[in-house]
């Protein structure tokens, strides 16, 4: 949850969600819609500059958060790189076409992931949900999602403690005990989650809960300057990409 922690203390935390969403989505769109080179490199660079510059995301957090998507991207790109056929006996090959395609997914995957980080590392989930509420996503759905977010941390804490207690009594000693412990943990968690929900409901009822969870959302003031900068940045990427890709 390093990204989320970073979002809470981000200097961009109080920027309007719309601003940040527009920047992220515009970068994403250029990455996906324009020719992969040099667009992917440009938008990845733009995202990196934004993240490490004004958004002041710690490079270690960035590197750590990139690890797991990178694993998928590399595995996926490798699968694209290798061509298999079996018509005249099984054959494995790497062709110019597959290597171009592999580079494409590699570039778009990394660039796309970095673009999403712009939103993820600057906007806590609550603000995002408030944004969805303003965007007319049904109230009930937003409320469930916001409660999921809160309960998540409570449950993760419980999970950690139960696992440690199981490990202490050698419950993770071998495959058999680990499986049994995982089963007990899952079941126990479900019961604990349910009990928590029931108690939370009573706690909220005391404060007038009747099914709706009104929220005090700070007004999201869109910044013209920020939007202008976004348009300029994306514009530069678009122009450079189109010129750079040129007639091939």
């Amino acid at each position, binding site marked *: 949850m390093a990204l989320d922690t970073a979002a809470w203390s981000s200097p961009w935390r109080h920027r309007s969600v719309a601003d940040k969403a527009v920047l992220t989505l515009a970068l994403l769109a250029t990455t996906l819609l324009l020719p992969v080179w040099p667009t992917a490199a440009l938008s990845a660079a733009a995202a990196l500059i934004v993240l490490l510059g004004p958004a002041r995301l710690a490079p270690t957090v960035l590197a750590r958060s990139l690890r797991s998507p990178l694993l998928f991207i590399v595995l996926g790109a490798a699968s694209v790189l290798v061509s298999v056929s079996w018509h005249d006996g099984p054959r494995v090959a790497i062709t110019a076409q597959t290597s171009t395609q592999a580079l494409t997914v590699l570039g778009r995957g990394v660039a796309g992931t970095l673009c999403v980080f712009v939103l993820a590392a600057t906007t806590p989930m609550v603000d995002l949900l408030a944004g969805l509420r303003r965007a007319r996503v049904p109230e009930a759905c937003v409320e469930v999602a916001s409660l999921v977010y*809160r309960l998540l941390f409570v449950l993760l804490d419980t999970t950690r403690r139960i696992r440690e207690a199981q490990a202490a009594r050698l419950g993770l000693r071998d495959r058999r005990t680990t499986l049994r412990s995982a089963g007990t943990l899952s079941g126990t968690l479900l019961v604990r989650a349910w009990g928590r929900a029931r*108690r939370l409901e009573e*706690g909220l009822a*005391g404060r*007038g809960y009747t099914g709706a969870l*009104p929220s*005090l959302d700070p007004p999201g003031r869109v910044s013209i300057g920020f939007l202008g900068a976004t348009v300029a940045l994306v514009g530069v990427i678009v122009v450079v990409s189109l010129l750079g890709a040129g007639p091939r």
Partner: protein
Amino acid sequence: MSHLSLEASQVVMSFAGRPVLDGVCLSVPGGSRTALLGANGSGKTTLLRVLSGALRPDAGEVLVDRAPLRHSRSGLTQHRQQVQLVVQDPDDQLFSADVRRDVAFGPLNLRLPEAEVIERVDESLELLGITDLAGRPTHELSFGQRKRVAIAGALAMRPCLLLLDEPTAGLDPEGVDEMLVALTRLEEQGATVLIATHDVDLALAWSTQVAVVTRGRVLQGEPAALLGDADLATRARLRRPWVLELGDRLGLADGDPALTGVRDLDSLAAVIDRERLSASGSRAAREEGR
């Protein structure tokens, strides 16, 4: 806030056929500080939930300023603006991702204009000395901080009566002191406070009246008298506060009217000192008279 009185009258409550409260009578006068004591499982928390309107008793009733609580929607809505319960585990009460949103929940449900909601939130945070936490995510708070945010959330409803279940449990000694300071502030603002606690020393030092839950009933009275009762302490799985116990051991209690004033370390030290002087004085007098 103005003082209201709260009363439980002949409250009966069972869970799964097991009686927990068996005709409980409790009266909390406006402006009092009540400590509710009792063993684990004695029904303290159940009683608090009945008083707060969360549970409807099988028999008996809850009265606020002599008016019985109705468990209709409107009755409960009204009750909740007067009586607020803060449960023991703050995670059972905090549902928002950040502190400000959580505290605002109650006032928003009262459909107050936004300006007043913000005013109430700020006031509640200030009263508990946690204004600096306003924008912080709930899951990053310490246990003691979460406890205070939970109280702020209840407070933002501007209740006349505040019920707190084990407000000091799990807090370090300084956290306990800070909590007591916060409670004192609430009283100064006109709230009547009832706490359920296991801490008999705290109960003696803090409360103006004590209520002990034992075997489904409640005994209510003057703190020193009830907490000094060795018989009752045994029956209720409690122990006597150490100042009373020590006073007894030292023979200070034998008809000593001064001891009725003993409720904490300071007052006990004063009594012992006084007794020392008079003892040596009288002994000296005796010696002289010999």
